[in-house]
């Protein structure tokens, strides 16, 4: 007879990592100079994009190479409203960015996810990537949205009469949004809804036998991820003061995949960690003088190659990503739903 193999107290490292990263982030604007505060804010915004990918791939097993599509279209929509209609209120633009991402993700889900048969991972990956690529090409050739040059010199976001400048205020605003979305997603994936997502990830075909409308669950989670990517895209556009076709295409979509794979799939904090480490390395590496001018020059343009090799090594030798160094499998998988009551709880007691 088989024995209980995973008994014993569960070491909870994940909350420690989460709190440690937050504690590290909080004083940054007071320690770093302006350049690094702006850089850190950009990482926070990109972390939202990475979380949106982690939600669909790490939790629901939907391989989306199109997260940049929701990110970019939301950014473009907000930028167009700001430049053509002079709408700059964060209370309008940010929810609108999210809703644009959500609506677009729902449309994409209707094309590549919904249907009688379970779509293959490859079909969804190629479908979303094609969508991302097609819209990028469209934006590049459409002068009304700035063509190749995109839309630049965006006005600052406002909250009432207050202008939100890049720097300390933008940093804390982005951090607050990241924490709020992170907590909401964390709650979602650890809830009963998360349990169904885990079921979809493990044996999608089996869930229908318990009465679940699997496609509806996938549509909901994909749309929610679109909402998060949309919020990220809206914030990014105003933080950078610019939105361009590159923010719609497969390159950024792939970057989101890389962030999550490198940091650790299916943990959320891994996505944040992945963005932080990759963005830091990609900036810092070409700046190291001791590497020599030839290597520096190569890294400035050839960094994606290094990144690709790094990622390949991660996937081959450490598929649990950076977070897997400190967080065990059992904790990464997590537990779901409310605790059972009465006799069940007693049975579970050691």
């Amino acid at each position: 007879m088989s024995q209980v193999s995973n008994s014993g107290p569960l070491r909870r490292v994940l909350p420690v990592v989460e709190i440690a990263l937050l504690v590290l982030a909080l004083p940054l604007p007071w320690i770093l100079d302006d350049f690094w505060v702006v850089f850190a804010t950009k990482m926070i915004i990109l972390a939202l994009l990475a979380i949106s990918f982690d939600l669909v791939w790490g939790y629901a097993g939907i391989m989306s190479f199109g997260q940049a599509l929701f990110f970019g279209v939301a950014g473009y929509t907000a930028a167009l409203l700001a430049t053509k209609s002079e709408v700059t209120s964060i209370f309008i633009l940010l929810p609108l960015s999210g809703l644009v991402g959500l609506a677009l993700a729902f449309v994409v889900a209707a094309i590549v996810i919904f249907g009688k048969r379970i779509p293959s991972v490859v079909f969804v990956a190629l479908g979303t990537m094609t969508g991302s690529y097609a819209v990028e090409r469209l934006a590049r050739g459409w002068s009304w949205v700035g063509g190749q040059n995109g839309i630049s010199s965006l006005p600052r976001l406002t909250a009432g009469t207050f202008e939100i400048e890049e720097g300390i205020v933008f940093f804390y605003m982005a951090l607050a949004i990241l924490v709020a979305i992170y907590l909401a997603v964390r709650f979602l994936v650890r809830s009963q809804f998360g349990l169904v997502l885990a079921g979809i990830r493990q044996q999608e075909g089996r869930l229908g036998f318990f009465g679940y409308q699997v496609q509806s669950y996938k549509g909901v989670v994909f749309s929610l991820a679109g909402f998060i990517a949309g919020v990220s895209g809206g914030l990014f556009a105003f933080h950078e003061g610019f939105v361009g076709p590159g923010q719609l295409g497969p390159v950024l979509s792939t970057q989101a995949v890389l962030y999550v794979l490198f940091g650790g799939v299916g943990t959320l904090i891994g996505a944040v960690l992945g963005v932080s480490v990759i963005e830091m390395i990609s900036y810092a590496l070409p700046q190291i003088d001791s590497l020599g001018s030839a290597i520096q020059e190569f890294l400035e343009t050839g960094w994606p190659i290094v990144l690709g090799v790094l990622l390949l090594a991660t996937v081959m030798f450490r598929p649990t990503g950076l977070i897997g160094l400190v967080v065990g499998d059992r904790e990464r998988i997590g537990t779901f739903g409310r605790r059972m009551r009465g006799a069940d709880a007693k049975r579970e007691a050691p």
Partner: protein
Amino acid sequence: MADNPLLQAEGLCTYYGTSQALFDVGIKVPSRGGVAILGRNGAGKTTLLKTLAGELAATRGRISFDGTDCTRAAVENRVRRGLGHVPQEHGIFAGMTVKENLLIGAMGNRTGREHIEEVITLFPRLGQRLPQKAGTLSGGERKMLAISRALLGRPHLLMLDEPTEGVWHGVIEEIAVRLEELSKEMAVLIVEQHVKLALRVSQYCYVMDRGRVALAGPSDQIRDDPELTRLLAP
């Protein structure tokens, strides 16, 4: 066999691509009691169950469940109407705990959560393994988990495909007793290679051969029918 069966299939034809696996199959399952489907390997038993569950589409024929035509209904809609299915490969979520497997079965039916305690009473050993990964269970325990999980959907009809396959003989008896108990309260349709067990659990029996129903009748009569031995001969 009752005049108003819970499940009635008529003239079912099912194909795998261009290869026909079921030929005008008709069966009836009453609202209470056990019905067995016997047959050699490749006779079409599992195909029939999959067609009834909605996993395979019937090319021709009609399936009515609880008085409603569900020939074209999706799997999840059949489940919601009360058609439970435990497949041959049991389909447990190996990476989840026993408790999570049960929860996922309970949540499909909104009233199922309160039913978990009752199901654990049916298979007490599952209650001792709630925090254990389902992938580490023995073959018999996996079957028990799969049956329990299907029961959490509160089915009116429970269809089981080879519930004792790969199960240690000591556990087979436990499963058989539970199935007998269940068949007193609900409809049970069982596909089984273990002929004695199938005839013991059921009151009516269909014997399939080459995708067709070759023999049908009350289990206690079929048991002594020489045709049964011929149809099940390897």
